[in-house]
């Protein structure tokens, strides 16, 4: 099961996701990138059913690119979050998509923001959250150690702590995690450990 964690810092959004694709007792791939870059200043970390979330997030990404070509505008994170939520809410009663997403974005106007979107069309703007089984273990850790306006170094330390907690208490061994940050300079991957 996918573990996806994200938190908002002073001027960035940090996302982490595990990189394994496993079915029953077999690990099929252990270097999957589950954090998609929607555009220059947005990441979409995904979890759920592997085929569903890839298909759906690519659909969202292409629609955003089309919007940008047609109008010359990049949508704000708020607009993208509501667009994604609208699509999932429509699909839940037509052709359900098991995609649980964490949308992190940096807007010039409103700064960093994080949105929790689940497969039913739930939408919440949050400072820190997790999807998948990780939430059972990590929300407590984040409650305890998260503070508003943390710096990137503190954020990375906190994320490493969360990943260690998962390694300690979660029965499924998720060996690798990938971490990406969005700030005013765009999206980049963080190398840690």
């Amino acid at each position, binding site marked *: 099961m996918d573990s996806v964690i994200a938190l908002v810092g002073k001027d960035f959004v940090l996302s982490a996701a595990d990189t394994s694709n496993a079915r029953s007792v077999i690990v099929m791939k252990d270097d999957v990138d589950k954090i998609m870059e929607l555009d220059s200043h947005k990441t979409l970390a995904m979890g759920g059913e592997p085929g569903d979330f890839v298909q759906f997030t690519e659909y969202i990404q292409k629609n955003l690119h089309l919007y940008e070509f047609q*109008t010359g505008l990049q*949508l704000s994170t*708020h607009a*993208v979050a*509501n667009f994604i939520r*609208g699509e999932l809410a429509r699909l839940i009663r037509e052709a359900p998509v098991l995609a649980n997403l964490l949308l992190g974005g940096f807007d010039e*106007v409103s700064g960093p923001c994080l949105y929790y979107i689940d497969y039913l069309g739930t939408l919440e703007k949050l400072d820190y959250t997790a999807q998948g089984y990780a939430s059972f273990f990590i929300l407590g850790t984040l409650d305890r150690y998260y503070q508003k306006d943390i710096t990137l170094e503190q954020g990375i330390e906190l994320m490493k702590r969360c990943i260690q907690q998962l390694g300690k208490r979660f029965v499924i061994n998720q060996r690798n995690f990938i971490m990406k940050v969005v700030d005013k300079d765009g999206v980049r991957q963080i190398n840690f450990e």
Partner: protein
Amino acid sequence: MFYSLSTLLIPKILESHTEIKLYILHSHFLFYTHTHTHIYIYIYMASIGTGYDLSATTFSPDGRVFQVEYAQKAADSSGLTLGMCCKDGVVLAVEKVLLSKMLLKESGRRVHLIDQHAILAVAGMGPDGRQLATRARQECEQYRNIFRMPMPAHLLAERIAGYVHVHSLYWHVRPFGCTILIGTWDGKQGPALYMIDPSGTFYRYYGCAAGKGKQGAKTGLEKLDFHQLSCEDALFELAKLINAAHDESKDKPYEMEMIWIKRDLGKASLVPPNLIETVRQRAEQLAREEEMAD
């Protein structure tokens, strides 16, 4: 049978005209006598776009679509309509001619609220403009439903212009007989003003005018510095321009309708009637003083 009748009629009514031959072709598709004769009477009387102006789907040999041009004439025959960007908002004003003393003021509005951030003014046929305002409201509402954000100005203008244009492509609908001014205020980009004419052409302006007297009004607008004027100043300037364009002796009495989006108010609203009245009195007073000084 009717086709052969019509070929007899042609030489009797008119001398040989190249345009008329087109009508013979055109009549090939008509099957009712009354429409046949109706058309021939029309040819006899038409003078401007003779032959090429019956439908919006016909180009003339010199590349014009006459139906669209006639629609533009309809739009130009209304009272003066002005729009202006200011440093803290957008203002639109319409000179609404009062056709009768029995008319209740503030009815038959030509300025419309589209969304909290968008306003629209109509020059030309009021009902056509109302239809476009409804469409603009639907576009903005749909955008808000999907993205939970106000619709960007150039996107709204493009959509409405596309809608207007589409009505000049088909034989069974007529073009809109109105020019519309769309004003928006965006938190990031500030004020925006677009003017869309019946052909579907649209441009973005600092200040624009449509309707009778628009040339003089455009000259007047060019003298203003939009970056310095506030919305209240803009109201006064527009009132002055409408007053200048209106000829007391010749034209009927008029009502001034104004609508604005002011940054301080936060959302679009009709300008209060007493404020319009104040501004109009000031403008008329100023005009009288200038006349006496001359």
